[in-house]
Every structure is written in structure tokens, then in C-alpha cells.
């Protein structure tokens, strides 16, 4: 319990602290591609099981012959999947396959078309039948289930009638066509031609569904037909196209089937619609519509196919297999409903993963304790500026003309000017939650904006974007390329903007959760105006908050709020790239750091660690259950109804403190800025900006001069 047991300066240790199995699982659950994980595992398991129990099952030759049998079913399943995604269903897929099978043979033997002609004509046939479905479902708004059921019955009857008439014609005729034979038993790169064609269609289908306007519209319609219509999507046309596509996919299956079997009978495609439905739902294409990929359809298709085929080869009677498939469909539908409904909830439930965070013993803050932190009332009677005219000025800054700026919760930068700073104006509206501010050399006000990134305001009030993203961390599941919560920034002599992005897992509104979690989710990011590139300098950092470039310009001071420490990161000189702890045992949660006129630094403590809070930080289970069981307003917080400003020097020694111990005028004090003998005070939740007179300081010193003018200390 004594001092820290964690080493916060080594990257490896910080990386390890940001990992936990629960956390990994919660982030996995939020991934789209993680959704079909259960069917995928089942598919692999089935393959392994049959390879182990059936001799020669695991060979390439067997795989090839199975694929040849599977491919036609694959096309049918794909057609079914498209209809399901559109929010409908196509029960006529099996019948269309049978009809296409007949049609192909008819074109070949009776009309004696060449192979390419047969293929095109059959596709057209499938398309026309699909078109009938599409017209009924799309334009006449018939129920897909009944419509396609009727199509199924009519088609089935017609095919049977035609079969009877032409069976003998097909049996007696023969065509000597190498192309047709190739369609039946050819291979492409040792893969059966029909499987190769399926693969090609899948690739195209994937791009179509996930990357094209058609796919997006289709998914939108499936998710909510009414909303899609309101969004201007042509629902009728899209549905029509979908059923046509489904019919044509079945026709492709039919052509391959015809080429392979060269015969027709009344059992062709019988029951395929239900197998396809089972397969597609099993794979994770939602029956409710709006959700699914071609790969999920194929995973499901392979499971059903392997199961049917494998059970038969294990010598299990066909009717048992059918029963098994039925049971699987039932289970799949049940799981589909529960899983899709609760996955997000489950992920939410386990998203917060508190870690043990033992903090160094806090020094005493009691009045008369003799520590530099001892309570006093130097801020209680601070002069109020803009009382009730600013909402939560998290940071305050003054320009060369002594005008005062505050970044407020309504997305504004408020400016006070005039002799007594009584003239209030909205200097700029940026939006988001503007936090830390700094002037660059050309007097642009650079602002860290939570929820947006880093923005700049020109002296005339024009807002421009500096950066809103950084390079993505390749090994993180959560996409962290966006800046979630840029908190404070400072500018180095070379113009580089160093800023803190205090959390990559939460937002401004939920950042208390990050404190509760106590994991290194934040980072130090740098924007280089010379190259216009943004890069992450320090990843996995514990809630980095205040940022200040040291007086000599060689290092960056970083305040870690959740660790209650100040770090120094060297950006120049012999120790470049090194991170070290500057102050180890602050009595509270560190916020903004800014330069002081005498070559030291100001630091705001936004929260004070209470003993009960410290104990909770050592107890991750407690925090986890608290987050779950207790409403957010009732969570245990560090003490925040007070104001505290500290001063420390280059070697990390705390020199003194300025207090408003019970927050009479300055509670949740987050920033302070020295300017011409005054210290200006800003607070995240306060209704004013305060200022106090400082004794015995350089009364000509201003922040701007210290960075860009003649008060600089970085030039020897």
C-alpha cells in the first residue's frame, strides 16, 4: 500500500495495465465481424469432427468433390440471404432452381442453343420468375412469405407437368459440347467450376452488399422499410431488383445443376428452400431483416451441408437428418432473436473494467500541517469576472491586449475586454466542449475541443480545424484514430502542438467512467504544423490532462488526473523520448498546468483524494459493482467542491498552495493563468472567472511574451 507498485513510465507496463480479458471480450462483442463467431466455430468444429471420424474426409479430393455438390446449394442460399436482408423471404428458391434446371435442359436439347446461349437464357428465365416475385412484393406490396409460397407451388406444379412431357426427350437426346461438359465437371485451379463461380459471386456480392449504394439501401430497407422510404430510398425498385437477383442466383445454381446431372425429375430442389433458410439464419442473417453478410450465409450453408452430408456418410437415416436440421433451425431462430437483441447490452454491461490503482500516500492538506498543501483561504475572496455570464470556463487565457478568454460548456469561447474586463462577447463558437487553450506565434487561439479535436480561432474569430485524428493503434480493437476527448494543449517553440486525448474509450459525458476504470486509456498526441501530420507520442497513458511545455522548451509536463502525478516527457536534448515522474504524490487529481512568471509552474487540482476514494481505487471489484448497481449521481467521487492551485518548480518540488477549501467561490477549479501580476482562475463547473493579485511577481510578464516574445527562457 505504501508507494506505487506500478511503474507508469515504462510502455510495456502501461500496455499491460490497459489489458484485461473482460475488456477484450467487451470490445470484441462490439465488433461487427465478431457477430457470426458462434456459427463460425460450429463450422470449424464440424469439419474437424468429420475429418476425425470419417476416413479420407480431410483430403483435398474429398473437399473438392464436396464443394462441387455444395456450390449449387450455395447459390440458392445466397439468393435466400439477399431476400432476408431486404426484410423479406423467398420460399420459391428451390422451385426456381428446379425450373431453371428444366429450362437449361430445354434450351440445350430442344432449342439446341449453344452453351453461352443456354446460360444467358436460363439466367433470364430465373430473372423473369424472380421478377414476378419482385413485382408482387415490391410494387403490389404483397407479403413476401405468401407470395413466394404461391410461386413455389405454381412453379413446382408447372415443372412437374413439363418434366413429364420432356423427360423422354432429355433422356434420348445428347449434345456433344465440350463447353457444356466443362460446366458440369470442369475445374478452375483444381477447384470445381461451380465452386469457383460461387466464390467469384461471393466476392462480388460482398462488395455489393457492404460497399455499394445498392447494398446499403438494401440493408436500410431490411432494417426499417418505413425509415428507408422516408430517407428517399426507392423501396419498390430495390425490392424488385432483389427478387430478380435472387431468381438469377437460383438460375446460376440451376445451370450448374443441369450441366452436372443432365436430367430432370420431380425431386430436384425439393426442400431446398427450408435448408437454405436454416443455413442462412444459422449463419447469422437475421430473420428480422437488415442484418447479414454473404459470408454468414455461406458459413450457415456449409454447416447445413456438412451436417447433411456427414450424417448420411456416418450411416444415419435421412429422416433423422431432416429432424436434426429442423431442430437446428429452431435453435438458430431462438438464438438469433436473443443474441441480436442482447449482444449490445452484454457488451455495455462488461465495457467498464476497473483496474486496481494503488496511489502513493497523500500528503496532509490540513491547515497547520506544515506541508505546502496546507489549507488556506487565499482564493475565497477572489475577484469575480463575468459572474453568471460564463458557463464552466474550463480554461482561461489572456492575449497581448489583456483580453480574457474562457472556454465554456456551450461550445463557445467567451471574451472579456475593457478596463475591468466587463465587456463580454462570444469570441467564437466552435461547438463540442472547448477545454485547454493556447496562443500560437501568430496569435491564433488553439483550442482542444472534447468530442471534436484540436481547433484554432484566428484573431478575427474565424474557426479552423487543426486536427481531429491521429494514427490508429494497429493492435487495438477499438478504432482510436479519432480524437475522443482532446483536453489540454501547449505549443513548443518549434510550433508543434502537444495535446492530451484523455480517454480513447469514453466521451466527455462519460469521462467519469474513465476515472472509475483507472486504466491507461489516454494518450499524448502531437500535431506538427510543418508536415500537417498528427501522431501519437505516448500511448496508454493514465488520464493525461494538463499539458505544459517547459520553460526551456525541451520537455512537456503532463498531468495525470487518475494517477495524481505529474510526468515529464523529454522532446529535445539528450534525454529525448524519455518519460519520468516529476511529482509522485499529489493530494488530489491534477488538472491544467501553466507557466508562472518566475520560471515555475502553476497546477490546478480539480479533485482531492478522500481516504474513501483512495480505498475504492485500490478495490476494482467495488468500483465495477458500483458502476453497475448505483446511479451515476450517487457514485463515490473524489472531493470536488473546493478550489486548489499549486505552484511547483522545475525539479518537481511543490512550493505553495492557494485554496478555497469549501468551494465558496471557486469549486472544481481546473485552470489558472498568470498575467501581469494577477492569477486568473477558471473552473469546469463554475459560473465565473476569478482573479487574485499576486505579490512580488514580475508585473510585465504575460503568457504570450513567455512563449513568443521577450520573456522566453528557451534561448540560452
Amino acid at each position: 500500500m505504501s508507494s506505487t507498485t506500478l511503474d507508469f513510465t515504462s510502455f510495456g507496463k502501461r500496455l499491460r495495465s490497459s489489458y484485461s480479458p473482460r475488456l477484450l471480450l467487451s470490445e470484441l462483442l462490439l465488433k461487427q465481424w465478431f457477430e457470426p463467431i458462434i456459427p463460425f466455430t460450429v463450422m470449424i468444429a464440424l469439419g474437424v469432427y468429420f475429418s476425425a471420424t470419417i476416413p479420407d474426409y480431410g483430403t483435398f479430393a474429398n473437399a473438392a468433390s464436396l464443394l462441387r455438390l455444395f456450390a449449387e446449394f450455395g447459390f440458392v442460399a445466397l439468393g435466400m440471404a439477399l431476400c432476408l436482408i431486404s426484410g423479406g423471404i423467398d420460399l420459391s428458391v428451390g422451385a426456381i432452381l428446379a425450373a431453371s434446371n428444366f429450362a437449361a435442359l430445354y434450351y440445350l436439347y430442344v432449342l439446341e442453343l449453344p452453351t453461352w446461349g443456354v446460360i444467358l437464357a436460363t439466367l433470364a428465365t430465373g430473372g423473369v420468375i424472380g421478377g414476378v416475385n419482385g413485382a408482387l412484393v415490391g410494387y403490389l406490396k404483397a407479403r413476401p412469405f405468401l407470395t413466394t409460397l404461391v410461386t413455389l407451388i405454381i412453379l413446382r406444379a408447372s415443372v412437374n407437368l413439363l418434366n413429364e412431357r420432356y423427360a423422354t426427350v432429355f433422356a434420348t437426346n445428347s449434345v456433344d459440347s465440350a463447353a457444356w461438359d466443362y460446366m458440369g465437371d470442369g475445374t478452375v485451379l483444381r477447384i470445381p467450376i461451380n465452386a469457383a463461380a460461387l466464390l467469384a459471386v461471393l466476392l462480388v456480392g460482398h462488395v455489393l452488399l457492404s460497399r455499394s449504394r445498392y447494398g446499403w439501401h438494401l440493408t436500410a430497407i431490411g432494417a426499417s422499410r418505413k425509415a428507408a422510404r422516408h430517407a428517399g430510398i426507392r423501396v419498390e425498385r430495390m425490392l424488385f431488383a432483389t427478387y430478380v437477383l435472387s431468381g438469377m442466383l437460383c438460375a446460376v445454381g440451376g445451370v450448374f445443376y443441369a450441366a452436372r446431372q443432365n436430367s430432370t425429375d420431380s425431386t430436384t430442389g425439393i426442400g431446398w428452400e427450408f435448408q437454405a433458410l436454416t443455413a442462412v439464419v444459422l449463419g447469422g442473417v437475421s430473420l428480422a431483416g437488415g442484418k447479414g453478410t454473404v459470408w454468414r450465409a455461406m458459413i450457415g450453408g456449409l454447416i447445413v451441408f456438412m451436417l447433411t452430408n456427414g450424417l448420411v456418410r456416418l450411416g444415419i437415416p435421412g429422416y433423422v437428418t431432416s429432424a436434426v436440421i429442423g431442430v437446428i433451425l429452431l435453435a438458430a431462430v431462438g438464438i438469433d432473436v436473443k443474441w441480436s437483441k442482447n449482444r449490445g447490452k452484454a457488451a455495455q454491461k462488461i465495457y467498464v473494467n476497473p483496474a486496481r490503482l494503488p496511489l502513493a500516500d497523500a500528503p496532509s492538506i490540513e491547515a497547520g500541517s506544515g506541508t505546502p498543501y496546507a489549507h488556506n483561504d487565499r482564493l475565497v475572496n477572489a475577484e469575480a469576472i463575468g459572474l453568471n455570464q460564463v458557463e464552466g470556463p474550463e480554461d482561461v487565457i489572456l492575449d497581448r491586449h489583456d483580453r480574457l478568454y474562457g472556454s465554456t460548456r456551450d461550445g463557445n469561447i467567451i471574451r472579456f475586454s475593457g478596463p475591468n474586463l466587463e465587456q463580454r462577447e462570444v469570441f467564437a463558437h466552435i461547438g463540442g466542449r472547448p477545454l485547454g487553450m493556447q496562443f500560437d506565434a501568430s496569435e491564433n487561439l488553439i483550442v482542444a475541443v472534447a468530442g471534436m479535436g484540436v481547433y484554432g480561432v484566428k484573431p478575427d474569430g474565424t474557426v479552423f480545424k487543426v486536427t481531429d485524428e491521429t494514427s490508429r493503434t494497429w493492435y487495438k480493437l477499438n478504432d482510436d484514430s479519432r480524437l475522443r476527448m482532446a483536453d489540454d494543449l501547449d505549443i513548443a517553440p518549434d510550433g508543434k502542438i502537444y495535446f492530451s486525448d484523455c480517454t480513447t474509450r469514453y466521451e466527455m459525458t462519460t469521462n467519469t467512467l474513465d476515472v472509475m476504470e483507472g486504466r491507461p486509456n489516454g494518450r499524448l498526441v502531437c500535431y506538427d504544423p510543418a508536415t500537417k501530420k498528427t501522431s501519437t507520442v505516448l500511448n496508454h497513458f493514465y488520464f493525461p490532462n494538463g499539458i505544459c511545455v517547459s520553460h526551456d522548451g525541451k520537455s512537456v509536463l503532463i498531468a495525470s488526473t487518475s494517477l495524481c502525478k505529474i510526468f515529464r516527457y523529454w522532446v529535445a536534448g539528450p534525454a529525448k523520448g524519455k518519460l519520468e515522474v516529476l511529482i509522485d504524490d499529489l493530494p488530489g487529481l491534477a488538472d491544467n498546468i501553466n507557466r508562472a512568471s518566475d520560471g515555475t509552474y502553476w497546477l490546478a487540482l480539480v479533485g482531492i483524494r478522500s481516504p474513501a476514494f483512495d480505498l475504492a481505487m485500490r478495490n476494482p471489484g467495488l468500483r465495477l459493482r458500483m458502476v453497475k448497481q448505483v446511479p451515476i449521481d450517487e457514485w463515490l467521487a473524489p472531493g470536488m467542491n473546493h478550489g486548489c492551485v499549486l505552484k511547483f518548480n522545475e525539479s518537481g518540488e511543490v512550493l505553495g498552495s492557494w485554496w478555497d477549501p469549501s468551494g465558496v467561490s471557486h469549486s472544481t477549479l481546473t485552470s489558472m493563468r498568470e498575467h501581469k501580476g494577477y492569477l486568473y482562475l477558471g473552473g469546469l463547473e463554475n459560473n465565473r472567472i476569478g482573479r487574485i493579485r499576486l505579490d512580488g511577481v514580475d508585473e510585465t510578464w504575460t503568457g504570450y511574451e513567455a512563449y513568443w516574445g521577450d520573456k522566453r527562457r528557451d534561448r540560452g
Partner: protein
Amino acid sequence: MGFLTNVVRDIEQIVFRNRDQHAIPAMDGAISPNDRLDALPRIGAPLADADDVAEAPDGALYVSAGRRVFRLSGPDHADRTEFASFDRDVGALAVHPDGRLLVCVAGQGLAAINAAGKRAWLTEAEGQPLLCLTSVAVAKDGTIFVTDGSSAYEPGEWCRDLMAKNHLGRLVSCGPALDAARVLLRDMYYPNGVAISADGKDLWFSESWNHRVSRTAIDGQAIGRPRVVIDNMAGYPGRLAPAAGGGFWIAVFAVRTHLVEFVLREDDYRQEMIRTIPPALWVAPALATSNHCHEPMQFGSIKALGIEKPWAPPRSYGLVVRIDDEGDPLESLHSRVGGRIHGVTAARETAVGLVIVSKGSGQIVLYSGGARL
């Protein structure tokens, strides 16, 4: 160990999902929050640690504070004289029909002071000392009933008793001469208030730690089977006092918060907190808020735009509830977050009105709406 209790609790919640959760009820209806307590006129300057009040037959008030009992008399009760002093803190007071003042003394027992200032003592019941007397009431026949909050802690350490999740309280009766002490009920959840109904037939008592008020018939020194009248209060009920026209006033000395209820479920944390942190800084209810930044704070308590939210989760609170003779609340007086009249330990009807003692602030206030008819 702690992990196991949590797993068991989770399983119980699934298996017995309709079981009473004993969750904090909302303060609504007759106990909707208001600021009436803060608006009341005060009787004199604050008395540090003022605890209970009783009315002398001549209309003067006895007020216990610290180790002393004061007598407040004259117009507006402005004259304060020390009536008695003890070696230990004094708490509950009652005036016996024969004129004696009954005083509960922490760690010692019940003292009866007669007009001549002579003291008689009751220090034990059935062999167990009476260390934590929290309230006293006298029936019409002169029988005395006292509540002994806990056998582990004295009244000043009530918070330890709560956080230890004790239920070591007793209801004790004795004769007018402080003789024949009998234990009527045991293993109670910090009985903290006792009163006799206006018709003299029923005895009502409160148990703070399970937020209950119960009643039972009395017959001399014997009682019937207790019946729970209020099962789940939003706060911790303390002393009871009969109200004119039936019913009672309940001094609710603190209100429950989700965080405290949560910590009471978290055994590991709670035990380590008790072991390593001074009681004033525990996650626990308190009689007053010091605003020291080492006191545990809750996110809802953060001042927003300079305003302390009255509806923030309270560390301390002031609440007096009037209930009818069925236990249904009729009216209430509150002092919310930011108010001063917190930690109300006593409310008693007198000839001039309802005298309310706020131990948290030391203030004694007068509510004329509670005047005896």
C-alpha cells in the same frame, strides 16, 4: 469471500426475483422534499450536541446537550439554566407523570431525577448493562420503557454500529421505581425511538437499521406481538413522539443513499474502511456535513455553476415526518442539501408547538403547526 457473497447475491436475484429488495423508496407524497425546517424560528442560540427535548409540567423545556441537561424557561424559552450534569453524554429525556425527569446516560443507564435533585439509576436489565439507551417513554400507569440501541456501542458511536451491520438492540421495561427491569425484545436493529399512543394502549418503536416502525399492545410491563407499521422508510427513523389528534412525529436523523446502501453490501470494502479510515470520513450517513474535501463525495454533489444542488445525494439531511395512527405519513418538514437543520434527533409537541432538535447544527427550532390542541 467478498466475491462469493456477490455471486450468491446475483444468483438469489435471479432465483428469487420477486423478493422484496428493500430498496430506498422515493420521497414523494406527504414526504416530498421541501425547505420548511430551514424557515422555522429558532429557540435561542445553538446548543452544541443538543440531543433530545422534554416538556416540564410547568411548560419549561429540558434539553440534553453534551453531558448536561438544560432547562429552558421564561418567555420564548430564552432563559437557559443548567439543570443537571453527568459524567457521560446524555441523550433521551422524558418527564415521568410523578414529575421526575428521566435521563438516558451513555454507557451508564437510566437516571431519574426528582424535584429535590436526587438521582436513582437503572443500569442493567437481566444481567446485561444498558450502555446505549436511545429513547425512553412512560406509560400512563408509570411503567417505563427504554430502548437499548446496541450492546456493542454507545449512542455516540451509532455510525459504527450501523456500519458493523449489528442488530444487538433491546426493548426494556421497568417499574416506576426503576425496578423489575425486563427485556421485552432482543436482537433488534438499533431501536432508536419509543412512544406510547395517545390512548395508552399501544407502544410504538422504531428500528433505525432496518428502517422500520412497529407497534405492539401493552399491558403493564408486558407487550403483545409486535406488528410492523412502516416497513421501509427512505431514512433512518429515530425518536418518536405522540402527535395531537393521534399518530406520531418521527425524527429521521439521516436519510439513506444508494452509495451507503451499496457500501453496506460490500463487506470487504466496508471492513477495510472501518479498519483504516477515521469514522468522520467513512462512506456513511452523518448528522452534519462539514464540507471538508476529505469527506466522501458523490458525483451528484458537485456544485454546478456555483450552485449547490438541494437534490444532490445527501451526506446529512433534516427530516421530521408526521404519521397517522395507521403509520401513513401526513406531513413532513425537510432541510435538504445546503440547508442547516440537519441530523434531527428529536421532535416533541409542547404547549407552544413542535420543538425540533437538530443535533447536526445544535439548533432548536419551533414549528407552530405542531401545537398541541
